[in-house]
């Protein structure tokens, strides 16, 4: 059982940003962001993480949690 989880939905709710808006800002498709949100992704690129942090004005630790 993987203990690293993506808390993208929490950060998105805090920043009041929709998946569509985030997808346009980050340059990653809706489907791929949804996969990430559902913790289905096998890995995340630094470039994607960088773009997410920039778009959501947060730290990588806000998005990725170890539980």
């Amino acid at each position: 059982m993987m203990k690293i989880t993506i808390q993208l939905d929490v950060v998105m709710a805090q920043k009041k940003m929709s998946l569509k808006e985030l997808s346009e800002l980050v340059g990653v498709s809706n489907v791929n962001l949804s996969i990430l949100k559902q913790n289905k992704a096998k890995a995340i690129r630094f470039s994607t993480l960088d773009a997410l942090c920039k778009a959501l004005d947060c730290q990588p630790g806000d998005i990725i949690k170890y539980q």
Partner: protein
Amino acid sequence: MRDAKNLIMLTAIICFAAWFAGNDFQLPKPVFYALILGVPIIYLIRIVLSRNTKYKKVFTSKFQWLFSKKHSEIIFDLDVHNAFYIISNLAHENPKITLVDTDKKNKVILYSSKANWLTWGSSIYLSLSPIDDSKTNVIVDIVSFQTYNWGENEKLLELIVQTIQNELVI
């Protein structure tokens, strides 16, 4: 490249047929007409049918002994709709395959691979079916349009599996 090779093959068949005719070759007439007309017609039909997902069964049937085939199944850790989207965009990640046709209703995707000196190119049929809300079964059928393949189908299967796995790196 594959179309060019097909055209060369077709021209060669017609030239051979014309040469046999010109040299008064002693073939029985029905056999001669079957060769001169039948082979190019079958060849053309094969080219047309292999570009549509509807005719998948024609090429992947177990009774189809003219072409070499490779069958495999992968379980993809995504729901069928997202898996269909991801798998129908594989060509962006891999220049060795080209998207030919998709059937959204029956969840079938058809790719073709490029021809090289070992192969005329293959058709890759990917059929998706849901296992549950978060898992999809992907059936991969690779059909090479030659009776014997030189390990190209196995390489293609490996490439497809690898590309699908890489799609889950966001």
